[in-house]
């Protein structure tokens, strides 16, 4: 009997201990903000930023990371209806941003943008991505330019140089193939859209833009041709198996494929694998498929950092966003991850990435919004599945386009 009483008491004590959790904040003036994000793996970098901001503007920041972006977005949307409101949160540009701005809860950052542009901390080029109904919302949490990472040693071994034209690129792939090396990486899971957007943007960027706003159809001849070109490349044997579960960082490092196309953030995968830029790997801008286009199309990705008007301390949130755009903050943010920055004043250590960022800021490229942000969620969901099927069975491209168009028809019939 004695023993069982002790056990009961023990459980009771544990339960009591459990009640001591942190409840919702009551105070209005905050000295530490919570930053909700779907980049759970960046917690370390966010923490460093929090320490820096505390020191510089007296406002700390703690990240709350999620790992599944779909679940994260559902959570943020739901929080609009509750009293648990994030001080700061990451989001997506495009339709997703428009959607939440319509809820009239996202804080207007027009003033921050104007000031930052005047100070040279943000580039005018980014404004369209952050504009809804003539006003700006959120600030860039990160930016990324998409291009080709390549294994320098393999290129050197076969006497290859970064291609200047699309034909060069195909010739490079052919040379590698003859030497028994797979040229390109692709995958059927999640990032299945990468080659589609690249080929579309390099062939007809206007059509790409019309596609994402529902003004063109996936079954239009221009889109079909792009799929046929993609199929040719796959049929020619330039790609690794799309079902390969190997981490793309390891694919490039071990030379399983000589080239991997990703955003500049992929540089982190290289540095965490102790690869040296310029010696082990390098980066080039993918040439247009259609040489007649006036500018080289470059896929561009930017993730917003937002605050809410009804958060516990909206002023602190705005103060933080403002600080975030400064070169002091951005220097730290970019260098710690080995990535590029939205702030043109930040010097990028990596030579190739630095050049790309500078050129992009100088208007050398036609920036094309990444497919993931440019496409409304129901269409995107159908497209990711469709392209996943296509890379596995390239013969099904018409069927795939039709199934994506079916989702697009359904979506655009109720939106605009």
């Amino acid at each position: 009997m004695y023993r069982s009483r002790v056990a009961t008491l023990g459980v009771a004590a544990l339960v009591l201990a459990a009640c001591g959790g942190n409840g919702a904040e009551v105070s209005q003036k905050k000295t530490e903000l919570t930053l909700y994000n779907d980049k759970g793996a960046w917690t370390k970098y966010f923490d460093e930023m929090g320490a820096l901001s505390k020191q510089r503007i007296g406002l700390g920041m703690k990240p709350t990371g999620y790992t599944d972006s779909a679940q994260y977005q559902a959570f943020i949307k739901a929080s609009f209806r509750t009293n648990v409101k994030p001080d700061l949160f990451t989001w997506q540009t495009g339709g997703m941003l428009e959607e939440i701005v319509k809820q009239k809860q996202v804080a207007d950052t027009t003033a921050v943008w104007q000031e930052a542009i005047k100070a040279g901390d943000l580039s005018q080029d980014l404004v369209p991505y952050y504009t809804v109904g003539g006003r700006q919302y959120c600030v860039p949490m990160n930016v990324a330019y998409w291009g080709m990472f390549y294994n320098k040693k393999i290129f050197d071994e076969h006497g290859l140089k970064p291609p200047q034209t699309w034909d060069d690129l195909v010739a490079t792939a052919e040379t590698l193939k003859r030497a028994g090396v797979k040229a390109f990486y692709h995958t059927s899971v999640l990032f299945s859209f990468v080659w589609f957007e690249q080929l579309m943007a390099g062939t007809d960027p206007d059509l790409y833009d019309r596609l994402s706003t529902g003004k063109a159809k996936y079954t239009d001849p221009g889109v079909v041709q792009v799929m046929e070109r993609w199929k040719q490349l796959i049929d020619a044997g330039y790609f690794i198996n799309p079902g390969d579960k190997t981490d793309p960082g390891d694919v490039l490092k071990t030379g399983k494929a000589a080239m991997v196309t990703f955003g500049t953030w992929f540089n982190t995968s290289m540095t965490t694998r102790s690869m040296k830029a310029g010696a082990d790997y390098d980066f080039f801008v993918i040439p247009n498929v259609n040489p007649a286009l006036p500018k080289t199309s470059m896929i561009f990705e930017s993730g917003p950092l937002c605050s809410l008007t009804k958060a516990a301390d909206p002023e602190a949130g705005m103060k933080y966003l403002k600080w975030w755009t400064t070169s002091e903050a951005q220097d730290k943010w970019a260098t710690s991850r080995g990535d590029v920055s939205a702030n043109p004043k930040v010097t990028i250590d990596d030579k190739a990435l630095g050049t790309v960022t500078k050129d992009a800021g100088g208007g050398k490229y036609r920036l094309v919004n990444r497919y993931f942000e440019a496409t409304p969620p129901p269409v995107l969901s159908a497209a990711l599945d469709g392209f996943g099927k296509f890379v596995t069975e390239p013969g099904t491209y018409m069927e795939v386009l039709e199934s994506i168009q079916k989702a697009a028809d359904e979506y655009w019939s109720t939106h605009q």
Partner: protein
Amino acid sequence: MIRRIVLVALGLVWLGPTYLLLVNASRPADTYDPASAWAPSGDFALLENFARAVEGANLAGSLASTALYSVVSPLLGVLAGALAGYVIVVLRLRHGFWWFLLIFGGTVFPSQMLLVPLFVGYSEAGLYDTRLGLILIYTAINAPLGAFVLRNFYAGVAFSIFEAARMDGASTWRVFWRIYLPMSLPALTAVFILEFTFIWNDLVFGLTLTQSEDVRPVMTALAGLMTDVYAGTPVPVGLAAGLVVSLPTVVLFLATQRLFARGLSLGSVQ
């Protein structure tokens, strides 16, 4: 003898992937090559890899909370379940089958769909980001399992045991606490192991219902490293993180082994 051979052969098959896990989690992060993932590495870098995975993260508070959830919730869940099982089978509660069905019904809902309503409810009830909130939901998820296992376990116990105890003047509660509960120790432990592992490895509820570092379960801090392509985590680092956080569960398995050895059957308790 044949039995031992079959067991050893199957066991070796099972150890294959476990071997891969051990070898690659201990490999220096820079030398990983999927093509030779099966080859052992000369250097032992498990701790280095793990240190790299948790670099800068403050896991102490998170670990303590996770331990609290994984111990308290299964205890409460098993106890609530055992009580229900006992009253339904041994005390023959009226409409017992329907009560049982009601409790077991808690397992049929797909948990992903509970997240948003739970979050909204929790934020209104002030349970969001509290340890109590997590303990409650984990206990609710665990109770049906406990009820099912214990209900069926008690169904196999001879009713004469109950009658004899009652004859000696014990109350129904005392019969439960002093006879039925101790008798079902292996079953309780099996359920506890199941539930402990579930909570220890849970990601979805921990992510959605908490926010601050001290309340969030430890898995939420590590899962991103293993799945997020933006992280660029080398495979050995991710594996080391996965391996080290599963150690408590493994220790629990090994520590409870003797409960499942032949000889500790019902007969010996009587």
